[in-house]
């Protein structure tokens, strides 16, 4: 049965990306470098620069639709807004210096200070910049290739193996749960809030049971193909080309210029 895994649309972009043939270690390094640049520079200019650079790269070269990309960029919005609110507001017995706006609640002043507001904005942009840097990697590199990079980074084989299996099982469980949901809907299991909660709970219990039972069969199937605990998955080797390096170099130059206060 073919299903749309809308829960994890990032994953499906990775398989279709125009940058899929890029060397995966390089993409990870590039993304990590951009993350460090955004965090270490701590300047809105670098964050914004990264947001736009990664947008152009992922949309232009990777072929992700702009509308979808913007939607993905919206994922941290709630957090940015609430976190920003917490950082920007000050509660105080007296109005501190540099206050832009004040609200008096009984004996307490709720103030927005210039420092607080600027910190909130810097933080919000940093989050967007960092998310963009990670999107460049995750929207162009399928999980199998990311795990191959982790293996090369000497993460214990057992962890990699678990991650491989968990990744695969996630989609199996999504399929089962989608079918369960349809079946429950058909039997009016979601007719009101109370029933919905009950149905939701028991379908999850069912899902757990089913998955536990199947794990036995899945192990048999693994062993039937000679699996004996080693983590042997095919790893595609992708060439690092000068063209790919140019994109990285261009980013580094831009980040350096922005950091220099351009």
């Amino acid at each position, binding site marked *: 049965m073919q299903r749309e895994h809308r*829960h*994890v649309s*990032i*994953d499906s972009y990775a398989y279709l990306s125009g940058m899929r043939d890029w060397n995966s270690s390089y993409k990870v390094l590039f993304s990590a470098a951009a*993350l460090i640049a*955004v*965090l*270490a520079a701590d300047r809105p200019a670098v964050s914004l620069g990264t947001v736009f650079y990664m947008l152009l790269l992922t949309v232009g070269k990777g072929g992700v639709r702009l509308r979808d990309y913007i939607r993905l960029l*919206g*994922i*941290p919005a*709630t*957090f*940015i*807004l*609430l*976190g*920003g609110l*917490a*950082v920007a507001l000050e*509660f105080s017995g007296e109005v*501190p210096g540099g206050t832009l706006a004040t609200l008096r609640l009984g004996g307490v002043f709720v103030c927005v*200070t210039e420092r607080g*507001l600027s910190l909130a*904005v810097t*933080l*919000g942009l940093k*989050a*967007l910049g*960092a*998310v963009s840097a*990670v*999107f460049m990697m995750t929207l162009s590199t399928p*999980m199998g290739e*990311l795990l191959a990079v982790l293996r090369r980074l000497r993460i*214990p084989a*057992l962890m990699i193996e*678990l*991650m491989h299996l*968990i990744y695969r*099982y996630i989609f199996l*469980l999504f399929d089962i749960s989608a079918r369960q949901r349809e079946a429950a809907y058909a039997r009016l299991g979601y007719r009101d*809030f109370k029933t919905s*909660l009950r149905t*939701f*709970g028991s379908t*999850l*219990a*069912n*899902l*757990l*049971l089913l*998955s*536990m039972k*199947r*794990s*036995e069969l*899945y*192990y048999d199937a693994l062993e039937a193909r000679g699996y004996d*605990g080693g983590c042997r998955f095919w790893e595609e080797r992708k060439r690092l080309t000068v063209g790919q390096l140019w994109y990285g170099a261009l980013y580094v130059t831009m980040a350096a210029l922005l950091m220099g206060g351009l």
Partner: protein
Amino acid sequence: MSKKHMKLTAALAGFSLAFCVSTTVSAMHIMEGYLPPQYCIAWGVLCLPFLVTGFLSIRKKLEENRRNITLLAMAGAFIFVISSLKIPSVTGSCSHMTGTGLGAILFGPSAVSILGIIVLIFQAILLAHGGLTTLGANTFSMAIAGPLLSYGVYRLCKKLSVNRWVSVFLAAFIGDLFTYCVTSVQLALAYPSEAGGVWASVGKFLGVFAPTQLPLAVLEGILTVLIMMALEAYAKPELKMIGFHREVK
């Protein structure tokens, strides 16, 4: 405040508001890029002893029986899936379970630390919830502190012979609340208040996230009870398989 700043603020606020309505409220994952580098590293280091303990316990489990690997992987996948399924809601808003309490009760806190960090990595990569730079902080709050307390509460309730369902509820509810408190402290440590220092800042973060997190904790508690009830109703032998047998007698 310069004009440039005003514009940036307005743009960012507009952007966030536009999406805020449509996006999902899940556990309090600290976003990518939200913590300064030294905090990212410090929280990561703090997680290490717990992760090593968890890793060793998992390895031991596998040495006893290799077949446990698919079982463990299924457990991990299950935690990921329940944390991304939409909980039924009255208002039509979109919220998700954390699975912290359920995981701790079913699989034990040491296995959950490892499964938890893997789930958090996948959430960061596949869903853009949380982040890779904030992985250490999120692992500490959601895969270590929360589950440990959940498990502790559960055991304590058992010792005090509290009603089973009450103890399951409390374990999940308190685990969730604790995760939310730890996250607030993590944010406050990085961004202390100008006037009142770290503690004032903790209050601020607790305050802004309370409207989403408090109802979520209650829901998490109720759902965990419903799931456990369903499991015990028709699956005692299967519960044995996942090491839950010490609890069900």
